[in-house]
């Protein structure tokens, strides 16, 4: 729908030559603090995490944990699993549910009370069987338009196929996590360490990094309108060539959650609010309430959802060789070095900032050249030097 909206906008733009999208800042919203339950009980391991927090004002977004709550998860037989708040992370409660209990057909609910004495509870949420992921694949797209721009984006669109039967749920949600390799522009050659030092051979220590990020989009689908429990080519996210993601090696981990109808509706509404809003024929945003209610004050609104699901996962890799010749790499993402008029910002720099890296001179040039530190130390772009264990070639 996002895409349709964009196309719709450009169509209007080209007809009227005057359309524009600007940032909108709402003023003076009365925000009320509401309890948020972020819980997903899965069959991946016995360790389970539940986060309980308060919603936060729109102009001052901070994590507001709910401290010292008494949190329990109950199964259908009334067995209680106690969750304890982590010592080092406030608002995050951990507990263990026996593996034998984490089976399709079982159902769980959450119950917790805050230090103020308010009590909250969800309804039972059934664990539905989750089929294995059939396949995740991608297509190269050199002509993708976003925003009201006439410049196409080039990149890769990922898709998933779901093929199962009526023994399984017909509602699914997918969570994505990407990992990619990226490199700084230059290895270390020259640096300031109280004096200028030039290494005899370049040092590649901080040259290659790996970064893992969650994809914060909601991907959910139902086959209830289809004549089989099969959904082919469900579009996942799009990765463009404007970052180094597709330059070396890219990996996508897809986790598939089977959902109850109630939780699917919840995620669909959230998706509608966050991804569909604004289009001409889009539905209006709405309040989305989950399955947790306040027992002590039924009028209190509780956000979030206590979800229970079995999970299957699948990882795929995309290397530059796979894309070679098919994806157009038209972006030069390398840093450009320059020669400052004065060097005292380096020579007078404080010791904590050392070493101050210098850039190698461009071809056919000599002398001292400078570039920001992240052009030489890849860790500054958010990744780590550690090669992920699944990164085997």
């Amino acid at each position: 729908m996002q895409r349709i909206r964009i196309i719709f906008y450009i169509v209007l733009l080209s007809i009227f030559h005057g359309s524009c999208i600007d940032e909108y800042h709402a003023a003076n919203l009365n925000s009320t603090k509401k309890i948020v339950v972020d819980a997903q009980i899965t069959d991946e391991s016995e360790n389970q995490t539940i986060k309980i927090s308060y919603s936060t004002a729109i102009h001052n977004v901070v994590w507001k944990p709910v401290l010292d709550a008494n949190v329990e998860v109950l199964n259908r037989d009334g067995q209680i699993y106690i969750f304890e708040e982590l010592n080092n992370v406030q608002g995050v409660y951990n507990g263990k549910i026996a593996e034998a209990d984490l089976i399709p057909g079982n159902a769980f609910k959450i119950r917790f009370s805050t230090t103020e004495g308010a009590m909250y509870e969800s309804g039972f949420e059934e664990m539905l069987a989750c089929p294995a992921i059939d396949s995740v694949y991608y297509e190269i797209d050199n002509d993708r338009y976003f925003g009201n721009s006439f410049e196409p984006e080039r990149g890769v669109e990922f898709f998933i196929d779901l093929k199962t039967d009526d023994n399984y749920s017909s509602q699914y949600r997918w969570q994505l996590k990407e990992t990619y390799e990226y490199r700084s522009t230059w290895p270390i050659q020259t640096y300031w360490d109280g004096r200028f030092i030039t290494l005899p051979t370049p040092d590649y220590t901080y040259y290659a990094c790996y970064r893992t990020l969650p994809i914060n989009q909601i991907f959910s689908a139902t086959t209830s309108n289809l004549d089989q429990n099969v959904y082919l080519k469900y579009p996942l996210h799009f990765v463009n060539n404007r970052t180094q993601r597709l330059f070396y090696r890219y990996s996508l981990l897809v986790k598939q959650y089977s959902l109850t109808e109630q939780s699917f509706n919840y995620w669909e509404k959230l998706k509608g609010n966050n991804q569909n809003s604004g289009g001409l024929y889009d539905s209006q945003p709405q309040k989305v309430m989950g399955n947790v209610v306040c027992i002590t004050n039924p009028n209190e609104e509780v956000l979030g959802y206590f979800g229970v699901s079995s999970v299957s996962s699948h990882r795929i890799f995309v290397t530059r060789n796979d894309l070679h010749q098919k994806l157009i790499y038209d972006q030069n993402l390398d840093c450009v070095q320059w020669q400052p008029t004065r060097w005292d910002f380096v020579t007078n720099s404080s010791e904590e900032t050392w070493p101050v890296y210098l850039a190698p001179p461009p071809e056919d040039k000599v002398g001292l050249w400078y570039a920001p530190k992240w052009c030489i130390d890849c860790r500054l772009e958010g990744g780590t030097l550690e090669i992920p264990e699944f990164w085997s070639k």
Partner: protein
Amino acid sequence: MQRIILFILSSILFGGLYAQNIVNDTISVHFLNSSMSEFVENFEHKTGLKFIYKEDWLKTTSITVNVDNVPINEVLEKALFRTPYTYIFVEPNFIILVFKESFVNKIPFYDGIEISYEQAEGLGQQDKNKYLKGRQPDEKIVINIGNGVKVVNSNKVNIQAKIIDIENNDPLIGATLFIEKLKTGAATGVDGNLTLSLYPGIYSAEVSSIGMATVKCLLNIKSSGAFKIEMVKEVRSIDEVTVNAEQKYKIRGSEVGLDKIAIKSVKELPSLMGEKDIIKISQMLPGVVSVSEGSSGINVRGGSADQNMFYIGNIPLYNTSHLFGFFSAINSTVVKNFSIYKGHVPAKFGGRLSSIFDVETRTGNKNKFFAQGGISPISANISAEGPIVKDKGTYVVSARSSYSDWILQRLPNDDLRNSSVFFYDLSGNINYEFDENNSLSLFNYYSSDFFNLNKLNEYYYSNLGSGLNYFHRFTSRLKSNVSLVYARYNFNSKDMNNATEAYSHNYSLQHTEAKASLAWLLSDKHSLSFGINSILYNINRGIIEPYGINSKRSLNNLGKENAIESAMFVDDSYEITKNLKVYGGVRFSVFNNIGPSDVYLYDENLPREYNAITDTLSFENGKSVVRYSNPELRLAFDYELSSFNSIKFSYNEMSQNLFLLSNTYSVAPTDQWKLSDYYIEPARSRQISGGYYQNIISMGLSVSSELYYKTSGNVLEFKDGANFINTKDVEIMTLQGDQEAYGAEFMVAKDEGKLNGWISYAYSRSFMKFKGEQPWEEINDGIVYPSNFDKPHVLNVVANYKFNRRIILSSNLLYSTGRPITLPQSIYFMNGSSYADYSDRNEYRIPDYFRMDLSLTIEGNLKANKKLHSSWSFNVYNLTGRKNPYTVYFVSQNYGLQGYQYSVIGVPVITVSWNFKLGNYAAD
């Protein structure tokens, strides 16, 4: 005495009297209900003329005249028009006042002879017709009615006048014949006829109609009879300001909540891309708003978009938009004028809660072939008309088509090259007059839209309609109309966003209607009309079918619906006293939803869901599923305080059996009309309204203010998350609730002069409430919330300035409070992402809307003998370039939420359009 009369006669017959003397000097005078003596004194002082009169005549007479730089003779005519006097000029500087009757009685009459003044100004005979004439000096026609032999002096006789446009013999509707002496008159109906009851005698009468030169005539009535008056289009001279109490063009005031607009009076208004659009123009009137710029569907007095009935000819239009709603499907070249009933609605209309848009279409020119057309950046249109059989039959055909596809194909973007936006409409009108008493008309209409967004979404829809109308007059007091109407609305939508879920959906609605009505004039003061109509609805909500070889979509048949809605109505209007007129109407309709149909019964203690079904009722073909009857009462009172001001009240009840299933902000081309059924009951509304209307003659203004309060019940609204494609049973996804609206509307209009236009302001509110016995029967927890189109303050200014007949500058100015919106109030984290927690429904508002448009129309030369006349129109839409938000939406980001506002037209849009017509400037 005899000598004077002869003198007058010769003056009238041979003119010359006014030639190049003092009475052609121009003066400015301003009087409102002044005494005659005051007027005379002031006039003598200003002009040096001397009045001769009988002293006691002047005591009882008042004068109203308001002119600038007008020849003295015209000023005098205007000043004396409402008095029993006329004047004679005698050299060198005397004005003799005489009784009008004192000389007209003595004129020897000849049937049909025209007695006219000749204006002997500088131009020679030859030159006279080279340029279009400005206002002509008064002509007085003498009309003899009936046969003198049959005169029975003591009894009133009935006279009937047919008033027509001389150019195309079209009947003029709403033309008035006024007899000053009796302070009485009558107005023509749709057939251009009016009837009066008078004693035999000779009367001085004035016939006026919008846009027509006033005809003054003498009626010599001998016995009952009929006659015809032909009127000529009025081309006003540059500096004329018209004066008298009779407003030539009055948008409001004839009934509470009725706005009437002649298309000619708004043709110069600025418009988006040069496309004239009566629905957009209607939004310049108080009480009519839309959700946002470019959204299809309008909201009248706090009612939802599906509560308006649009008639073009007498064909109902079920989708009025072209190009997503930026333009209307009603081609303005086929429109003659349009009326919007939003307060008092005559009982002959029904079926919608909020308003009736009645578009009267153009009829063909009876005398000669005529064509006109235009080109705007988005579309081109052409229409042709002429006689089929001289003086009997006429035709008009018109066509309009967009060429926006051509633009898209030339843009350097594959998504756009794969997209398509296209619309067109066609109409044809045939009229045939067998004789004075029998006529037949056939109007056909077709409109179609197609758009395809990068082959991911495709929409197609069309309106088709045909209306046959037969008119028959039994006697001068009893007339009848019989009509057959067929209308079809259908759409096809394809969603190909995900190949697996891709589907295609066909929907169609058919409306077949027969109606008959009789209008009976019982006496001058009492008229009655009554009639019946019956509509057969056949709706096929269509099948959701898989589209494309990869689609795994399962078939979902949304089902068919059939119903018959029959109504009878009586409209009765009675003039109790000279000042007080009452109107009473009753409409009684019966709606019958008929099978085949399967109706699910649900467990009443559970939300209506498929798992709450307890039983199924099956209705066979033709069997009644449910029947609803809707009695509606319509009352109106009209009290004339004086000839310049009046107050009016009305009480109006309406009902509606057709609903538009929409879960979007604005009306979408996939929205389905749905009939009342076993669960969905008819919506009903009640409105009380009142108004005060005042004409300020001295300034040429008409001022109106209206108040209304309206409640509606059983208004259909979707539940959060409703999807009308996946679920066929509408009762599962919708709720019926209440709507409340009230407001005060003010309007000041100036319809004459170099500067004309109107200013309207409305304060209005509109609320929704869906409170049920169970929580799942509620929307917004049962709490009242403002509707999507609740815009408390709306100010519109429409101004035209005529530099001269060839150059006209027009401007629109629109301001309104931003529409209500649901905004994120706080942010919360889940699953590593942030999400917005939205406020109660429509708790906030988007920024206020403001827009100013300008247009400059330059007409071709004014030569009388030319083959083709053309005009250029330069339009600037959104002159200030204000970025009025069309939508506001929020996108989750890793940490927080970013709001965006989208403005469709955030810069000034300048367009040029060209219009042409056969003939000269005045041709029509």
